[in-house]
């Protein structure tokens, strides 16, 4: 039992470390992707190919003046980025990073906790994540921040509906809310994206909105709202908000991979004649490759599409995505009944 506990603690630490590392290098990747798509080179001064740039950025963030406006609600102002960061880090707990490993006389899953309402847990924490932005924006006592916060909350609430409905279709075909079960059901190239393409499309659009990423970055909206909810923030509090966004992006990519692209499954995984441990470790690599591809995809879309106008965002959410999601749900349900009755 104690070995298992130690293994779990190690997994928690590793997942936490990897989350932070990937979020850190996402900032680097973002700048590089932005640069090459605009025919530039991007950061290349700090270290080889600019690889130490995230460290330099973090150092800069730490040494900046940590300013709290006099008019703000001081404690809420501090709690805002804390909540954003906390909720962002918590969602990694139930992602199944890999299959089963047998090591040190124990057999365990590369997952911190396999809770049977996994996807609900993620939706729950994503909803709490709005509070970070909402509280941060409201406590700043600044018009632009408040606008950003209001936009963020209404946007997230609207898109959570469509997102939930899109996920429901996947849950219906799998018959389980546990992410582990959803991944296991996609064994051997039976990826959900082939069976639920519409749900995938809806989910990824909603994921963009939930992460506050372009083209739905209404909450920040530099051109209209200065910086949106983090206008008044500086130093590492701002860093936390930005960092939470990148962690959210990482987790979203992981969830997209898990729900629609088979997580750690890869085609022909049982035809290679490898041992179970080897398959698991290749699977982890494949899973991270998928995640990094989706992180790149997030950036690719960001540097391609202009920002939506706010009313267009609401039109899209309520008038297109939700009806489509309901339609998808009905088709899936109808198919399930049809399949079971024969």
């Amino acid at each position, binding site marked *: 039992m104690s070995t298992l506990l130690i293994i779990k603690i190690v997994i928690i630490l590793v997942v936490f470390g990897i989350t932070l590392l990937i979020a850190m290098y996402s900032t680097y990747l973002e700048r590089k992707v932005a640069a*090459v*798509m*605009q*025919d*530039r*080179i991007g950061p*290349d001064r700090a270290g080889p190919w600019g690889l130490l740039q995230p460290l330099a950025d973090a150092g800069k963030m730490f040494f900046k003046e940590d300013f709290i406006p006099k008019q703000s609600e001081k404690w809420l102002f501090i709690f805002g980025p804390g909540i954003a960061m906390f909720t962002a880090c918590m969602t990694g707990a139930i992602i199944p990073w890999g299959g089963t490993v047998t090591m040190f006389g124990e057999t365990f899953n590369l997952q911190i906790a396999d809770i049977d309402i996994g996807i609900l847990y993620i939706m729950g924490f994503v909803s709490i994540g709005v509070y970070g932005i909402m509280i941060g924006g409201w406590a700043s006592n600044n018009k632009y921040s408040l606008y950003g916060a209001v936009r963020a909350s209404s946007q997230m609430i609207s898109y959570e509906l469509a997102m939930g409905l899109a996920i429901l279709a996947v849950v219906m075909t799998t018959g389980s809310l546990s992410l582990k079960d959803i991944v296991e059901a996609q064994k051997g190239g039976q990826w959900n994206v082939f069976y639920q393409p519409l749900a995938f499309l809806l989910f990824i659009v909603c994921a963009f909105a939930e992460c506050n990423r372009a083209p739905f970055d209404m909450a920040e909206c530099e051109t209209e709202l200065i910086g949106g909810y983090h206008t008044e923030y500086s130093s590492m509090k701002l860093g936390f908000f930005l960092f939470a966004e990148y962690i959210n992006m990482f987790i979203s990519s992981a969830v997209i991979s898990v729900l629609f692209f088979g997580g750690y499954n890869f085609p022909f995984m049982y035809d290679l004649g490898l041992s179970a441990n080897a398959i698991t470790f290749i699977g982890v690599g494949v899973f991270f490759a998928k995640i990094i591809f989706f992180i790149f995809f997030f950036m*690719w879309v960001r540097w*391609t*599409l202009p920002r939506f106008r706010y009313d267009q965002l609401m039109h899209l959410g309520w008038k297109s995505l939700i009806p489509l999601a309901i339609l998808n749900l009905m088709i899936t349900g109808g198919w399930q009944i049809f399949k079971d009755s024969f």
Partner: protein
Amino acid sequence: MKSLTNRSLQVSNRKMTLMERIYLPAIIGGMFITFKHIFKKKATVKWPDEERSRSEVYRGRHVLKRDEKGAERCTACGLCAVACPAEAITMVSSERKKGEEALYREEKYASVYEINMLRCIFCGLCEEACPKEAIFLTKELMPANYERSNFIYGKDRLVEPTDSRVDVSKRQEPAVVMNKYNDK
């Protein structure tokens, strides 16, 4: 009315078709374009590691030329200062003493000659106005500085050193020189 240039487009406010309203084909097209740009040649010049190539007749920081014997050509006539549209040039003239013939070509010379590089617009009119072929603009760039006062260049930084002469022959195209002398 008939357009003069053939470049005007007829705009319309027609309703978008379903394909356009779905918006996805346009997004995929746009993403294809941005993806293509990843492989394009980068426009960045990594200054100061690399320098962008400049024309031989680039109008950079000024030089006050000496003649072949190493005497200053400037006679402090003030035509450059008059020609200067930005009023960047000031000077004080002095009379040449006995024994200074090797230093100054003519009896009068500029004891102080200052160009305010923050005012200068590098138009080259001073060079054009100069009757003595004394002031030229060179290919060299103006270096940055922390102090505004350091941008007022005196004779110490303007007069060309005797040991490293500045080549301005490219700015003295025969046609240009001829033109200049014909004007007089």
